[in-house]
């Protein structure tokens, strides 16, 4: 299992970037993985590699980050056996020129990503011409998905444009990552006023676009509120574990006994996400061991669920 997800080297990434948009990058990554598995046949079993679905590049607008430098971040991820990381850009959070942020992100992942970083662009459905940003992310920058920041970009889950974006992304086979929170509202800069996002309309929106591949990022229990059962039972949405709190929090979340979540989330819907470099990537990694998870559960969390989602 540990050999199934080999990291792609820089040359592989460049080659992947040159293929037609009709063939998703994920398909290329999958074929690489299959090849690696064949090469690894007969090798001693090793610990699984990890796909980190929740990474950002560059500086957080309000603080210099320890691993804002892409080379340092990639080295850090590799030290922890993270061989693939889906990277958004902090520049997309407050910049209005999203295309410039997306272009720089794609360039940075290609040049400094070391085969680890997969660029995930940003689109704001509340702004005019977002369809063109989505097209560029897909066709021009070869991104396998887009990341949305409703709290920072000023849209809600019941807006028609949001639902249309889900639909358009689904037609393109793109993953949509929705960032529910980046920073605890209690410590926001005093010059900003960014309230928590209301998750309640999300289940209905997702039911209107059942083919959409959607992941919630930093989906802390208190943010999800009473919506966990509906999201789990009535949609196919997935979640990352970066903001899962409590002693044994991940295991308890799977069991349905995590006090901060009003409902269980099956292991098949959970993906590894670190929120690095804002959070230490050790945080999410340690959560995998704090709970007494089985090898099968760990493999799903570490990479299998992510592979399935992006494939």
């Amino acid at each position: 299992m540990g050999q199934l997800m080999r990291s792609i080297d820089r040359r592989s990434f460049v080659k992947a970037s040159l293929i037609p948009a009709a063939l998703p990058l994920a398909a290329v990554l999958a074929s690489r993985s299959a090849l690696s598995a064949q090469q690894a046949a007969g090798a001693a079993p090793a610990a699984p590699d990890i796909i980190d679905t929740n990474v950002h590049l560059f500086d957080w607008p309000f603080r210099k980050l320890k691993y804002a430098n892409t080379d340092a971040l990639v080295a850090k991820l590799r030290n922890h056996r993270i061989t693939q990381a889906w990277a958004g850009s902090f520049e997309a959070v407050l910049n209005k020129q999203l295309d410039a942020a997306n272009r720089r992100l794609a360039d940075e992942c290609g040049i400094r990503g070391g085969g680890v970083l997969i660029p995930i662009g940003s689109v704001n459905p509340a702004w005019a011409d977002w369809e063109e940003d989505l097209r560029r992310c897909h066709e021009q920058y070869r991104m396998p998905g887009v990341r949305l920041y409703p709290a920072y970009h000023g849209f809600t889950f019941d807006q028609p444009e949001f639902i249309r974006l889900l639909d358009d992304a689904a037609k393109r086979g793109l993953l949509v990552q929705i960032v529910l929170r980046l920073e605890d509202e209690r410590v926001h800069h005093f010059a900003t006023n960014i309230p928590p996002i209301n998750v309640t309309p999300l289940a209905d929106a997702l039911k209107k676009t059942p083919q959409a591949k959607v992941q919630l990022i930093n989906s802390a229990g208190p943010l999800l509120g009473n919506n966990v059962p509906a999201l789990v039972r009535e949609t196919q949405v997935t979640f990352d574990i970066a903001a899962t709190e409590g002693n044994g929090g991940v295991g308890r979340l799977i069991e349905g006994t995590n006090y901060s979540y009003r409902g269980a989330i099956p292991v098949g819907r959970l993906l590894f996400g670190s929120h690095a470099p804002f959070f230490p990537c050790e945080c999410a990694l340690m959560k995998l061991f704090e709970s007494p998870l089985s090898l099968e559960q760990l493999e799903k969390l570490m990479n299998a669920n992510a592979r399935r989602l992006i494939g």
Partner: protein
Amino acid sequence: MTLADPRSFALNPAAFGLPTRDDLVKLRIWDMHYHGFMNGGIRGHEENMFYVERMGIERMLSLDIAGTGADPLGNSIAPEKKREIREYLEQHADRVSGLIPIDPSQPVESCRKMEEWIARGPCVGIKYYGGNPGGVVCSHENNDAIIRLAAELNAVIYIHTWMKIGGKPRRPGGDNERGESTPMDVALLARRFPDVPLVCGHSGGDWELGVRAVRPFKNVYIEFSGSDPHSGQVDYTVREVGVERLIWGGHGPSRSYSTELSKVLDADLTHDQRLQVFGGNLRRIAAPIFKQKGYKL
């Protein structure tokens, strides 16, 4: 998920660049901020011991002994419940120590509780909750009698602090609860009691501001649990106040041990410095009362 053996792991954490349980045990981790008794009492604590064991935590200092946020002095807690927890602390003094909540809006009653639970009981310190019914923060003069008695008893003094953004005009601390202290309150108190160690809890929540508020006061220690894990937080705090003033807290069971451990693992510290942060500094300030009571250090 089976809870059979807390020391059993399906994969080796070392393969992922993480400390193993044995590595954590060697760090001699003392948890300054333990809420295991908060909601479920002794039963809740014993259930949580699975995770304490699994993560190699050596000792917990529980902050919720005979008191709650709404009733810090525990007037509504039945005498038999108090007797039960007191006996539990006496019987498990090798693993868990108690701090009692006090109420600065009731200084006389607070001192009476300290006599009962610290001078003549198993507890080793006092805790200021994040607010109190009377709305009195830790810098108020009401606290002087409490701090004087705590110093006489060599009690560990833990003060919850936060600076929640809000209010009009919007400012750090503007959305605090009534009686919820800020690091600036701790600084005022520290100025009046320069020889008494004070633990500024949660690093003020907004740690970039909180650390600076208490930086000049050498008798103020910084505990940094209970907020999201921000990469660089511990590096910054060490740079500002020195590694000898940091104290680790787990904030379980509501926070993940992973969250709190990762703040330290993220920092550029030597093994000896990690030893200081994870327990050495707390053992230093707790040593006088632990020795008085014959507790293992």
